[in-house]
């Protein structure tokens, strides 16, 4: 509760403060008048004051005043009503003497507080009545107003613009003589500029101005906005104005009556005269290259803003949706290029409709240009319209400013991108290349090496090529020796094989005689296998009937011999493990083994020969 009170108090206070802050109290009067001229000074305040005190008008005579007027206006914006009150106090003054006069501020009390207006400075020039001409020139048939009395002045809002910046050129007629008519005779060509005419229709407004102590009537006759298209020094050519001038007539022929009224046509002569304005030289600066964003397309101006909106975000395939991008600001909007959007590739986008709302005002070209894109999604799914960045150069701040539109997501009903499923749907396209650019630099570590060093052909390379050969040769020689050694051993064993077999058989014979069956069979086995191993150079460990057969075959031992050998082996095995009496077969097997070894030995020996 307490808090609410506190907040309301703060709100009320701030509202009061805000309203108090909004009070405007201004004094306005013409800046230049001439002696004897009557003019108004107005004090305007936007609230009802309880008290108003006018200053002393030193140097002026108050002819009338104060006259008070008030106006009230009401405005309703978004349901909020704002009320504006305007009260003005007007005095009519007359200048009494030449010089520069300062009118002090007026003061007023509003809601118990005292406010002061601004002070006003008024230059009072000499009387407008033309000075009497000392030397009359009766012989002069076609007198002209002198350059001092009549001139056309061209002024530029800035002489050092940036390229593309808006420069407002104003042409004014400054005169001390009457002009009844004027027409612009020759317009400058404005080469190297884009031109926009800002001249407001209707009669030109006139005002008084004191220049070098002389009082002139000033009328603005033309106003243009120029946008420099290149940088460097560019000269704006003069404007030529054709005028009908009312010159004061011959004094002698004027009656006193005419002189008194000054402006009487009877005492004046009308002369046609052409006056040239001054030329201007603009020193156009190029736009800075540094920090120029890539998206910059050349727009220069102030207060640019970009808005974008889509007409719908949820739709069906083949429905149209409108994207409106609007760019507003002060600058050369007619030169604005269409935004460079990266539309999704399967979204059909038509060229935009361009709608302009560009006004040429007194202060320059301003307004907005909008681009309407009609987009038709041809398939379902989600389409993302990426943000568009508008970059412009603000010459008042001398920097580039970016404005970004939001990203839009269109949700389209249905399956995404199934080409060919719908009749009439667009055919499948190749991947559309939006632009080609180089790939990014290599940022990882770089293995630098000396220029001219190539591994191929280097000393290291040659070493690496020839060393395997050397190794290979060494290996071959070593292995050869090794084989030779081994084969010698085998040769030895081959030669000794028969002897060894006989020795073993002798042993077996002893076992036979002693009738020791197991030992006998063991010995016969060992004899047969051992003989084979030695003879055929097969290690005992891998000996079996199959390898023996293979070895016999490769040695080209006849089939029956190898069979008889295998038979002997089989018989020995059978006899050994057969039940019943074994001793009767022992002699037979002994004979068989002996026989087999002898025949094989004979056969192999024959082969060698």
């Amino acid at each position, binding site marked *: 509760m307490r808090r609410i009170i506190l907040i309301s108090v703060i709100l009320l206070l701030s509202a009061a403060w805000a309203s108090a802050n909004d009070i405007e109290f201004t004094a306005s009067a013409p800046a230049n008048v001439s002696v004897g001229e009557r003019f108004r000074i107005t004090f305007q305040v936007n609230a009802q004051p309880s008290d108003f005190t006018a200053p002393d008008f030193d140097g002026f005579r108050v002819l009338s005043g104060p006259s008070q007027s008030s106006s009230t206006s009401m405005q309703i914006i978004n349901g909020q009503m704002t009320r504006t009150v305007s009260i003005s106090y007007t005095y009519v003054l007359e200048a009494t003497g030449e010089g520069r006069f300062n009118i002090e501020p007026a003061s007023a009390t509003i809601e118990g507080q005292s406010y002061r207006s601004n002070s006003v400075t008024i230059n009072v020039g000499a009387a407008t009545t033309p000075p009497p001409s000392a030397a009359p020139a009766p012989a002069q048939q076609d007198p002209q107003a002198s350059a001092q009395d009549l001139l056309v002045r061209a002024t530029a809002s800035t002489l050092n613009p940036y390229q593309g910046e808006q420069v407002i050129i104003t042409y004014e007629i400054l005169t001390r003589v009457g002009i009844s008519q004027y027409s612009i005779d020759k317009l400058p060509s404005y080469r190297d500029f884009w031109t926009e005419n800002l001249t407001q229709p209707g009669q030109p407004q006139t005002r008084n101005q004191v220049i070098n102590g002389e009082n002139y009537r000033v009328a603005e006759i033309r106003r243009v906005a120029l946008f420099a298209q290149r940088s460097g020094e560019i000269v704006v050519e003069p404007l030529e104005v054709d005028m009908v001038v009312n010159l004061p007539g011959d004094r002698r022929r004027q009656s006193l009556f005419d002189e008194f009224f000054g402006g009487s046509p009877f005492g004046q002569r009308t002369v046609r005269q052409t006056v040239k304005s001054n030329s201007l030289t603009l020193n156009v600066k190029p736009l800075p290259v540094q920090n120029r964003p890539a998206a910059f397309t050349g727009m220069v101006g102030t207060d640019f803003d970009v808005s974008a909106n889509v007409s719908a975000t949820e739709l069906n395939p083949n429905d149209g949706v409108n994207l409106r991008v609007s760019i507003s600001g002060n600058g050369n909007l007619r030169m604005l290029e269409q935004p460079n959007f990266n539309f999704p590739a399967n979204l059909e986008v038509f060229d935009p409709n361009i709608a302009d709302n560009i006004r040429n005002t007194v202060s320059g070209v301003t307004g907005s240009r909008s681009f309407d894109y009609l987009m038709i999604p041809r398939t379902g799914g989600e389409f993302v319209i990426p943000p568009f960045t508008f970059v412009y150069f603000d010459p008042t701040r001398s920097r580039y400013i970016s404005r970004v539109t939001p990203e839009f997501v269109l949700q389209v009903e249905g399956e995404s991108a199934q080409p060919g499923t719908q009749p009439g749907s667009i055919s499948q396209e190749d991947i559309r290349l939006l632009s080609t650019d180089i790939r990014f630099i290599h940022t990882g570590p770089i293995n630098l090496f000396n220029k001219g060093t190539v591994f191929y*052909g280097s000393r290291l390379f040659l070493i690496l090529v020839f060393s395997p050969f050397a190794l290979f040769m060494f290996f071959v020689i070593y292995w050869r020796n090794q084989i030779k050694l081994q084969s010698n051993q085998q040769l030895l064993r081959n030669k000794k094989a028969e002897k060894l077999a006989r020795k073993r058989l002798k042993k077996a014979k002893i076992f036979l005689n002693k009738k020791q069956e197991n030992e006998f069979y063991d010995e016969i086995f060992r004899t047969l296998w051992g003989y084979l191993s030695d003879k055929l150079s097969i290690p005992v460990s891998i000996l079996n009937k199959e390898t023996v057969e293979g070895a016999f075959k490769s040695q080209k031992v006849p089939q029956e011999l190898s069979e008889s050998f295998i038979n002997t082996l089989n018989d020995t095995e059978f006899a050994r493990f057969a039940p019943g009496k074994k001793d009767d077969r022992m002699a037979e097997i002994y004979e068989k083994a002996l026989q087999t070894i002898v025949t094989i030995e004979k056969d192999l020996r024959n082969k060698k020969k």
Partner: protein
Amino acid sequence: MRKLIVFTLIILSFSAFSQNPEDLIREANEAYNRSEYSHAIELYEQVLALDLVAPELYYNLGNAYFKNNRIGRAVLNFERASRLDPSNENIIHNLNVARSRLIDRVETRPLLFYERCWRDTYMLQSATGWGITAVIILFIFLSVTSVYLFSRTKGIKKTAFYTGILLLLLTVLSFIFAQKQYNRLTAQNEAIIMNPRVSAKSSPSQQSPDLFLVHEGTKVLIRSTLGEWIEIGLTDGNVGWVRKEALEVI
């Protein structure tokens, strides 16, 4: 301890004297990132001035030149990078992009199928790459040969024999490819036009008539040299003389 201090001092004095090339490259990459391409170019060129090269260095330099709109220099550096690392996809891509921005489009005879195969194969690796491959395959070949020579088992022997023949073939090819790439790398017969436009003359003198115009970035073959003049040949068969300073050898 004293030794250490002296050593450190020496190192420090060195680094003060000349900047470390790795630092230069890092600084250049950062400059590139900030779009200060001229500065990046300057730094990359400083590394090259130390007689140090790398395909990535040429590649980055080419990128910087490209971004600075000096397409001729960009093409030159991409070509140099491509010579050192012919199979790098990024280099090939950027070289093609840079070439697409050139003014001249010189017609080249399309390669026949087998020519393209042969070219694509030897372009797979640089001279160094093929050299290493050759050494490795040679080693394997000799190993397999030893197996063949000393194996007793028939199957192994047979396999080793055929593998050996295949490896021998591969070894020979690797050597041929390495030599081919080495020739490409060391050959001084290709150049890139550096001037925006150069008119090729019919003979090596300023007075002789102009034959054709070549623009910046076009690759030409150097046929002969005579004093300040170089006889160039285009891939479409045109031949003419240009001044030496108008081009730079890759």
